[in-house]
């Protein structure tokens, strides 16, 4: 269908464009920017006056829960939530059931995503069979079946030797390796940041070293094997310092922070509020500020950390609840708060949410250039809405922002030229 989006402020850092231009879309691609192509007749015109037109966001790691955990969510429900949040592509973590370690499961997921017809799903193949940390998975087969990268997340059960070999093998197939940096023995049975809050509440704490020790290991191995590695969901100030240094030394390591980690801290756990039980844990104000600065300085990109849960998963004493926030639909308003506070400008917001992740994955996304696939979200940055069961699309209602007022909302999302979401 021929679509014209007119009068919107185009924000396209990939092509250094920020201004009011029309976009002309046909056959799933952007045909022209600014001037209407010859003979173009728009079947549908979207008036984006006063709105922002951005390349659709790309998420580096979300739990879609299907196959295997359908009581929590499904590919359909979560890809629908994704487009409502401005995401046109979402990486699916390999911790499905069965694990994402065979082409059959890859195909299943791709088929379900296509059937749902919302955001594109980019499968992350398991780094090891069953995520068991022992046997390498058939990464070539997984790549061929459609995996954009491989990952051991959210597990961390690799010995140093196995990790080193897995990185070597993955890089031999030019595959990015996505890892969650966490030293399992230090983490132990901790469930909150190890600090004043954990001491007061008597909850087992996870010190920052659980993350930094793992990052140190990964950085050394990545450098030695020359593999491309991406760390998902960092939480500590010290981690930022290590990543900045690695970047300076030209080691191919990137990282992202979950958007909510830029706002929440350990204090929010309050008196055992399980909505704030996350992995990695919410840490201190100092950590939060360092993560914000890292985002502003383009050291790290921003992901959702999306973990939808059924109600029962959070209905237990804090240590026995499952960690995770259903977050795809709140990334945009949370990032816009940072723009309002002057930490980022709008171009940086778009860059952190779409271009940077797309570049990390080596995909042709996150750009509004002529000829590229029309993956676009249109945003009303001033729209105020209430987060309620009515406005929420994810099957998981486990978000601490429930009932709160949000500012900034997606009005339209297009995936490969089709309008898949309209407010």
């Amino acid at each position: 269908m021929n679509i014209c989006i007119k009068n919107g402020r185009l924000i396209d850092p990939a092509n250094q464009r920020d201004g009011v231009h029309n976009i002309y879309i046909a056959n799933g691609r952007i045909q022209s920017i600014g001037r209407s192509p010859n003979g173009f007749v728009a079947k549908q015109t979207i008036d984006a006056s006063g709105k922002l037109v951005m390349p659709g966001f790309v998420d580096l790691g979300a739990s879609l829960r299907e196959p295997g955990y359908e009581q929590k969510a499904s590919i359909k429900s979560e890809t629908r939530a994704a487009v409502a949040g401005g995401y046109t592509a979402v990486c699916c973590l390999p911790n499905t059931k069965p694990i994402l370690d065979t082409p059959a499961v890859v195909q299943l997921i791709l088929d379900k995503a296509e059937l749902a017809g919302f955001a594109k799903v980019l499968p992350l193949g398991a780094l090891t069979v069953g995520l068991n940390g022992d046997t390498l998975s058939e990464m070539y087969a997984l790549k061929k079946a459609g995996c954009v990268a491989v990952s051991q997340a959210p597990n961390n059960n690799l010995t140093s030797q196995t990790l080193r070999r897995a990185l070597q093998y993955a890089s031999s197939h030019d595959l990015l390796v996505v890892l969650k940096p966490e030293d399992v023995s230090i983490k132990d049975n901790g469930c909150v940041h190890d600090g004043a809050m954990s001491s007061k509440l008597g909850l087992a704490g996870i010190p920052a070293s659980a993350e930094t020790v793992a990052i140190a290991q990964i950085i050394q191995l990545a450098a030695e094997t020359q593999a491309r590695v991406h760390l998902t969901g960092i939480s500590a100030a010290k981690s930022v310092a290590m990543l900045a240094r690695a970047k300076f030394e030209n080691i191919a390591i990137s990282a992202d922070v979950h958007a909510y980690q830029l706002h929440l801290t350990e204090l929010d756990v309050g008196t055992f509020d399980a909505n704030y039980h996350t992995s990695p844990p919410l840490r201190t104000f100092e950590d939060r500020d360092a993560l914000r600065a890292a985002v502003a300085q383009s050291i790290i990109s921003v992901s959702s950390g999306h973990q939808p849960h059924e109600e029962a998963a959070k209905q237990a004493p804090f240590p026995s609840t499952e960690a995770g926030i259903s977050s795809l639909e709140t990334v945009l308003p949370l990032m816009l708060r940072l723009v309002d506070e002057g930490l980022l400008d709008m171009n940086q917001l778009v860059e952190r949410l779409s271009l940077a992740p797309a570049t990390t994955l080596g995909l042709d996304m996150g750009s509004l250039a002529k000829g590229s696939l029309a993956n676009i979200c249109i945003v009303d940055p001033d729209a105020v809405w209430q987060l309620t069961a009515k406005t929420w699309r994810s099957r998981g209602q486990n978000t601490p922002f429930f009932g709160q007022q949000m500012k900034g909302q997606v009005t339209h999302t297009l995936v490969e030229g089709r309008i898949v979401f309209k407010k």
Partner: protein
Amino acid sequence: MSSSKHPASTSFKAPDSSSLQLNDQGKLRHFLTTDGLSKQVLTEIMDVAESFSGVAEQAVKKVPLLRGKTIANLFFENSTRTRTTFDLAAKRLSADVINLNIATSATTKGESILDTIRNLEAMQVDMFIVRHADSGAAHFIARHVAPHISVINAGDGRHAHPTQAMLDMFTIRRVKKDFKRLKVAIIGDILHSRVARSQIHALNTLGVREVRVIAPKTLLPSDTDSLGVHVYGDLKTGLDDVDVVIMLRLQRERMGAALLPSEHEYFECFGLTEERLSYAKPDVCVMHPGPINRGVEMDAAVADGPNSVILQQVTNGIATRMAVMALTLGHYATGKSS
């Protein structure tokens, strides 16, 4: 949600539980933690405990105050001692008691805590006394019970053991009379101790001069001073001029987790002997929540010596628990008396 600007002061202030524990009239409805309760509430508990002490000493050990009320002991963690004291306290108030050891029943088969609670509510239970291995368990249950029901925390994970703290405060008040001038030292595994946390909050609320903790580094929680204590690493300096010593129990599992080399080394560094006791004031009183590991936390001479008030703690335990039950079950006042 955290505001984007954090407080300039370095002192740590986190939200407290008083809104959950007190009803609209400011009366104690649940007793989950000493943290956040006012000096007035804590004093009230001790005053009522004082009057119940009299009951225990009388020929008639029972009063009909809670007749017709049903109290459920919900113990998800095994404990004969604590459960027996609560059982006795409830019976001395003429309440009916149900004892449930959940460790061996429905929850292992997968029944959620909420379902267990709801089943018991349907059986007209008026009060839950909860002991659980998870910190925050009593809070969780308190948030989900019907408005007329009270929850008492009999120990949740490492977080709180408020009735133990109150019987300790009651004992200190009986022996020392005035909290104001007291220096209190808590010795042992602070990191894992719910008793210590509850005692620290109560002591600070009651206005003691100083609360000290003395422990090996591996058994101290992070940011220990944010709890409102001074940290000491050895007995000699830590016990200097101290009025009250509270010893905590050392559990065997700590050796297995590489937190301490042995009980022997612990006793060498932190065990209370008569000689070490002399670092404190001559009239120092020695307390222990029990059960004591003789030769680990203290030697027999101290445990059985003239400074020890450990047996008094046990006696006071029943009166204190009676007080907490009577105060909380009376919260759901329906009207004025004629």
